[in-house]
């Protein structure tokens, strides 16, 4: 499957099938820090991903100044 990572943007080819949780573990990514999107739909950590899937792992952690 094609896996898109961000910040910095890069693409990996990873063999499926696997689960979201196993994929994140393999990439050493904390599931709390990302969303996993298949096509244009969010998937939960127990979802099975097929070899033909296009997956985006989108970071959700932002930080910087605190304006309030």
């Amino acid at each position, binding site marked *: 499957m094609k896996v898109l990572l961000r910040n910095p943007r890069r693409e990996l080819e990873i063999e499926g099938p696997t689960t979201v949780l196993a994929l994140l573990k393999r990439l050493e990514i904390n599931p709390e820090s990302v969303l996993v999107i298949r096509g244009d739909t969010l998937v*939960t950590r127990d979802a099975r991903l097929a070899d033909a899937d296009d997956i985006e792992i989108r970071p959700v*952690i932002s930080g910087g100044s605190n304006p309030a």
Partner: protein
Amino acid sequence: MKCRRCGQPAVIDVRRHNAAFCADCFVHHCREQVKRAVHDFDMLEPGQRVLVAVSGGKDSLALWHLLRELGYEADGLYIGQGIGEYSDHSRDATVAFADAQGWKLHEIDIRGQYGFDIPGAAFATKRAPCGSCGLSKRHLFNKAALDHGYPVVATGHNLDDEAAVLLGNVLRWETGYLGRQHPVLPESRGFARKVKPLVRLGEREMAAYCVIQGIDYMVEECPMAAGNKHLGYKDMLNGLEEQSPGSKAAFLFGFLERGHEHFAVEAGEEREALGECRECGSPTSNDDLCAFCRLRERAQGVDAPVELGPTRRRRNRGRHSPSRPTSAG
């Protein structure tokens, strides 16, 4: 996983609630969490006029969307900070969203209106850029609310932001900051009321809300924030959260329920004792210029010679005191 509310296939799990939701029920969950925060902390009157601080990122655009959905007369304020392409993209995302929704957006361009930008300010002050950025945004959001007659400013600080700020302030026992860390800062002389309606929602939930609602937010991170302490605190807290779901909420809401009151008196006294800036009239602890006007004086016309970021901070280490912890107040 199945949706806890309707039993349909879930698209997102929220482990601190021991729940998963389908798209529709997740949107309902987000609205309910905002309604509960607004109610519990007495943030807003029904349908009240609110100025929302928007950056083009997930939290601020989701907040604007949620407040409108809940019936508030919410307008946006975007502040251009002159951080190269990042600022260009963040403005594009904000303007596109406001235009698509047909909602009113105020804009301030720091460079055009005040003669400096954040990279220049970081270079001039030899401090981390996030400090100059936060200081400028706090001053300008407050000023814009007072100038345009908005009784309340709403910011997109979420549960993760607040827990990370709390961790930073506790690590240094910053009692003044701890006294000001609250989802509501009341109106006082020279200050508009400030509220944080997303305090019951994590940033993973806000990103999911945007994906589900088709809100095209800017995923790219600010290049000047990379590697800062605040992100480090979030990493640590997410490590705890993965091991023990609910840790971040327990940490923050435990403080708000049982710790905040012990620090609030000191913060209130500090606010009462503030004077007026001779340049802009804003409240200040200084008898002369407020922090924003001092920053403006030092940074006007200064161009940063190189891209500033964590590298800059590393280079300065040893020559300057450590950057101040993030203030939630």
